Each structure stands twice: as structure tokens, then as C-alpha cells.
């Protein structure tokens, strides 16, 4: 029952195989919640890290990164937490006379007021515009302290999704899907001849002909499997 070596900034050196602060293409330093990551003096606590009594402590399971003096953890799993201006794909879950409730994959449903809907709707007749179960591409307009959020469909490209399919991935893997400067996403679009829209909540809209969608979906799954293996130090 030997555990993996605990990643600490102050015990990393060439001698113990850690090779100093991480550069890309080195073996990932995996951490578990509670792992001590070293002295907080020189480093700042980033995502998934908390400074407690002058020491940095991991809060999540994942891969430790040290970029520009900020130590953060790229978690293995995340749940989506909405932020203003996020582009998200949601499903209509319910409605009142003038408000839709939208499942955006966050702990709480967002609301879409009639005034921010895709087209003019009559009071009491909003289900004629968007019905329960419909998928929409929308943007987070406002997030309150208690995590309630408001989404809008007023904006360029925001619409009801009437064609194609929606796939889901973990939000923290979006960076890998999009790639540096959007390279991976552009390549995916070109090679599958599909419209691909990646929402910040980890939902990806694929639209095109059937073969293209199937191809894009397979590539998406392959990319994510590869990312997961890579994250945890296996061979790709």
C-alpha cells in the first residue's frame, strides 16, 4: 500500500525525480485534497489551493501547476459555476407566465426573463417561443452572490438549438478541446465540416450532416480520453 510521492514545492529537485517547478511535458504532479504543497511565502494560491498557516494546501484531486509564481490545481472533475458573460448551452426546464427556467449545468437553474428571450412573446404564451426540453445557446448576464443567475438570448449568435446534437464534457477540459489560439477547435470544424460551438459549461453543440456529427463526436471522445490519460501520467 505505497502511496504516490506527495508533490511539494520545497521538496522538488532533480535528485528526487521531481525536477523542480513543473514545465510542460514533464510527468504531472498529482495531488489529493489536503496534500501539503509547500511554503506559501514565495507563491500565490491559485485555483484549488488554499494558504493555511503559511503553507499551501491542495483542496482538490488533480494536477498541480506552477505558472508565474501561482500554484494551482487542474482538477480531474469539476462542476460548472456560472460567471457573467459565459456562453452556455442550456435546456428549458420549466416556465411561468413570463420567465423560463434554464438548466445550465450549474447547481442552480438560471432564469431567462421574457424580455431577454429570442423573440417577442406574449405574457402567458411563452411556451410557443421556447418549450420545455428545448436547447438554447445563451449568455450569462448576471450572477448573484447566492449563485442565482440570469441568462440572455439578446446577442449575436444566441439562438434556440433546433438541429444537430449536444455533447457534454467536463468544463475544465474545454481548454484542451479549443487548443492554443483555437487551433484544435478550428481543425475539428474543418475536418468534420461541422459547426462546433463549445459552451463554457462544458456542453458542445455539433451541427452538420450525420456523418460529420458522428465523426466530430468520435474525435471529441478521443480527444478527451487522451487528455484524461495524459493528465494522469499514462501513455497516450
Amino acid at each position, binding site marked *: *500500500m505505497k*502511496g504516490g510521492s506527495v508533490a511539494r514545492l520545497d521538496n522538488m529537485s532533480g535528485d528526487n525525480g521531481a525536477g523542480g517547478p513543473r514545465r510542460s511535458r514533464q510527468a504531472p504532479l498529482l495531488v*489529493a485534497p*489536503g496534500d501539503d504543497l509547500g511554503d506559501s511565502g514565495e507563491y500565490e494560491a491559485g485555483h484549488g489551493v488554499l494558504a493555511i498557516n503559511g503553507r499551501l494546501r491542495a*483542496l*482538490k484531486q488533480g494536477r498541480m501547476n506552477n505558472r508565474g509564481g501561482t500554484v494551482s490545481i487542474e482538477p*480531474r*472533475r469539476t462542476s460548472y459555476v456560472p460567471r457573467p458573460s459565459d456562453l452556455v448551452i442550456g435546456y428549458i426546464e420549466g416556465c411561468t407566465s413570463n420567465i423560463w427556467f434554464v438548466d445550465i449545468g450549474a*447547481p442552480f437553474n438560471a432564469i431567462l426573463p421574457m424580455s431577454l428571450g429570442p423573440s417577442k412573446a406574449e405574457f402567458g404564451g411563452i411556451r410557443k417561443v421556447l418549450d420545455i426540453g428545448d436547447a438554447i445557446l445563451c449568455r450569462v448576464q448576471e450572477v448573484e452572490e447566492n449563485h442565482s443567475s440570469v441568462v440572455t438570448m439578446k446577442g449575436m449568435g444566441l439562438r434556440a438549438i433546433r438541429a444537430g446534437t449536444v455533447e457534454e464534457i467536463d468544463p475544465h477540459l474545454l481548454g484542451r478541446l479549443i487548443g492554443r489560439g483555437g487551433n484544435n477547435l478550428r481543425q475539428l470544424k474543418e475536418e468534420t465540416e461541422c459547426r462546433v460551438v463549445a459552451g463554457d459549461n462544458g456542453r458542445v453543440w455539433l451541427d452538420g450532416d450525420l456523418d460529420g456529427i458522428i465523426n466530430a463526436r468520435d474525435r471529441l471522445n478521443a480527444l478527451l480520453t487522451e487528455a484524461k490519460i495524459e493528465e494522469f501520467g499514462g501513455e497516450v
Partner: protein
Amino acid sequence: MGGYGDVQCIDENGIRLDGRTKDEVRPVSIETGVVPVADGSARIRWGLNDCIAAVYGPMEAHPRKIQRQDRAVLDVRYNMAPFSTTDRIRPGFNRRSREISKVTAEALESVVLTELYPRSKIRVEIEIICAEAGTRCAGITAASVALAHAGIPMTDMVVSVASGKVHDIVVCDLNKEEDNYGEADLPMGILPNTGELVFLQMDGDLSPDQFQEAWDYNMEAAKVIHEEMVRALKGGGE
């Protein structure tokens, strides 16, 4: 805590019924990702104990009266399967499972950063598939790993282990016979990185020296189990 009968749980050489010495822990193995539809899950096999924990959320807390405006609530449900022991257990909640659910939630609340998810609920389901002894400890440990696997931010993981007294000898990690016929047991929830305590119960009587001895056994056992928890999270499962 029986104390009755004439069951010899430990011999004159200090060897217990299952062949362990008095400071030895039962074999522990943990795997993650055993419930694919859950946000996080873990299975622990600890001696003959077999326990699965699954975590869902954070999600909107229902009914609304359980919501807290400044933090999430942990909704823990501990249950023993009817077939988990030799005597069939009547399905459903009972006083024991309510108590264990409550102490488990309180132990886990001390490490989970609930304030990051106001008005939310994190659902933790613990199911005992096979019970030997120390199922509450197995449940808390499995729930800890499942929470970490679900990506819930927490300052440490809780390791729970119980030591106790059999024929006036303090032994580590009680098995079924020791639990049934022993004189005392001391389950503890330990934060292995800091050595802090988040949960402690005691059933039976221990002298201050025996209490200290049981405490030390638990602290040492926690390190062994924590290594396995970390191994499961860093390398195992989906």
C-alpha cells in the same frame, strides 16, 4: 459490546483470531469511479467490509427549508443492505443508520468548503454491501474519497478507524468477534495531514492509559489507510 460468553479473541502470543497482531490493520483496498452516473464515487474493501459511497452535487437543496443562505448542506444517508449481515436487516432507515448518517455528515462538514456553495446540497450516499465490523469507519472513509473524486473542495480527507479493548488488551481495528465480545471500542475520524480529530465516539470503558494506547493505534492506522486513499485518487479508477 457484549463481554459475555467465553470467546477467546486473542491468544497468549498476542495473535488475534484473524492472524493479526494487536497493532495491525485489516487489509484495505479502495477504488474510485465505481458508480459512473454519480459525480464521484468510491468503493472500500476493508477486511470483510465492503462499502460503496456515491456523491451527487452540488445541487439545489430541496426542500427549501433545509437551504442555508451562507453554505451548502451535506445530505448524508448511511444504509446497510439487507443482505450485508448474517441476520437479515429490515430495509430502510432505523435509529442506528440515522445516528451514523448524522455523525458522518458532521465529520465531513468540518473539511468540505461548504461556504463556496450557498443554498446548495451535496448528497452523499453510503451503502454497506457486506458488514464485518467498523462499518461507520468504512463509510466515512469511502465518503471522503468519493467527495474528493467528485471534485468537491476540501481542506483534508477524513480517515476513520476504530480501536478497542478485548480481554483487557487494547487492539487496533476491531474485527467482528472483537467488536461483539470485546469490552470497548473507540472509533475516531482523523485528518491525516494535520493529525486533527473531527469525530470521536466511545462505547465501553477504557482507562486513561488504554485510551491513549487506542488513540495511538488509530493515529498510526490512519496513516496506512490514508496512503491507500491517496493511491486510489492519484492512480486508480476512471
